[in-house]
């Protein structure tokens, strides 16, 4: 783990792997120092913003890390129709059939690694190697709300209509983000996710 300064009250903890990020995140949530305002996990790092950073920097290397799921990590089942505009292309890119893609995606248990890009946009880790595809060469100016997509090592769901470059394999009507709801996001770091789907 490497510690890098991020302004007067930020500490960026660079981690060796996503697994280490998740362990660190789970650990900090359990023993959350009161002065921390933000704990922002990402693919290979955790950003801490707030007070008490000097002490954390000193204590983190030796802190016993939480293993296993984050405390209270729930399972969210996402109903999905696998009718995505890029399903055929993903099948071609990976040398499989659309049915193979659907079977593989809907039998995987994902985990929310982190959120970013937009409120409620969760990067889901656990994607099998054979489903890993690059982003689209030309991003779309508009991706529909609820689009279920793939890019690199992650799957994701667009919480609202926006531009986007991920490969769309399906759609869900489940509202993963609702700013008036408590909690606003169904998907927070640590949440386990399964897709319950069928082809159109």
């Amino acid at each position, binding site marked *: 783990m490497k510690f*890098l*300064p*991020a*302004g*007067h*009250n*930020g500490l*960026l903890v660079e981690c060796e792997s996503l697994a280490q990020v998740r362990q660190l995140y789970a650990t900090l949530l359990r023993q959350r120092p009161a002065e921390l*305002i*933000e*704990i*922002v*996990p*990402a*693919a*290979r*790092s*955790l*950003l801490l*913003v707030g007070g008490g950073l000097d002490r954390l920097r000193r204590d983190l290397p030796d802190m016993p890390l939480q293993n296993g799921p984050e405390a209270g990590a729930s399972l969210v089942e996402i109903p999905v129709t696998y009718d995505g505009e890029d399903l055929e292309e993903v099948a071609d890119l990976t040398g499989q059939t659309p049915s193979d893609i659907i079977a593989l995606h809907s039998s995987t248990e994902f985990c929310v690694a*982190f*959120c*970013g*890009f*937009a*409120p*409620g*946009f969760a990067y889901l880790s656990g994607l099998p190697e054979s489903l890993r595809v690059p982003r689209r060469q030309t991003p779309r100016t508009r991706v529909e709300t609820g689009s279920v997509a793939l890019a690199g090592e992650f799957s994701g769901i667009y919480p*609202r209509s926006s531009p986007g470059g991920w490969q769309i394999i399906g759609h869900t009507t489940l509202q993963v983000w609702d*700013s*008036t709801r408590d909690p*606003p*996001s169904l998907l*927070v*770091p640590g949440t386990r996710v399964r897709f319950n789907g069928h082809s159109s």
Partner: protein
Amino acid sequence: MISVIKAGPLTIVQDCGRPGYAHLGVPHSGAADLPALLRANRLVGNPDHAAGLEITLLGPQLRFNRDARIALTGALMPASLDGKPCPHDQALRVQSGQRLKLGAAQTGVRGYLAIAGGIDVPAVLGSRATDILSGLGPAPLRDGDHLTIGELNEADARPKPATTIDAQPKLRILPGPRTDWFVPGALDTLCRHPYTVTPASNRIGVRLGGPPLLRIVESELPSEGLVLGAIQVPSDGKPLVFLADHPTTGGYPVIAVVVPEDISKVAQARPGSQLRFVL
């Protein structure tokens, strides 16, 4: 109740923002020049977290449908009440029926209007701030809108000092987190030359023109958390300073971070003006 006769190009409700949700991809948001809004709130006796208006470059015309106490701070916009000029940086009494007209900012970019009682719109995740990146919060003001003002809730605090708007502000920076992604002379380049604010700037971030900052590490940076004031450098080498509506994560390296005390100066820097960074 206030009627919006003319909204102006970008007049939005702002307060202290919505901290604590960055892990869900929610920007902090809040007034781009927060000290200016806080000063306006204190001048009218509002608590710090009361919502006011952030007015960008050209002001609105508002009709007050009841008596009110207001204050104008931040960028200097000529202001008049029923045609009579009114001063900046002090509490003003407005009478029911009076029309407030705000002109074009003479210096700076963002003016702030606080009204005793605060602007009463529904809060989203605990804040009334308009976030132009994520779309959370109320929509920008439009002609014909009506604003509700909250009940008076007098707070007891001395006003914060007014900030002067510098023609060529100096911005103090703290190196990191990714200074080592750049060539050894990059920080030096950043601090030796003035950088120009380009028109492609807004409350998400200020894009700068000037000598490019060259990278030593060519690989892609996995997206990582961002802080307010981060100086991010995309592939073209031209720095971008993040403001209130900055995204929660970013995939380009951050060479340094502007100290919080100098964020106002970035928020008030007009396109075409120059900034100087200082270690």
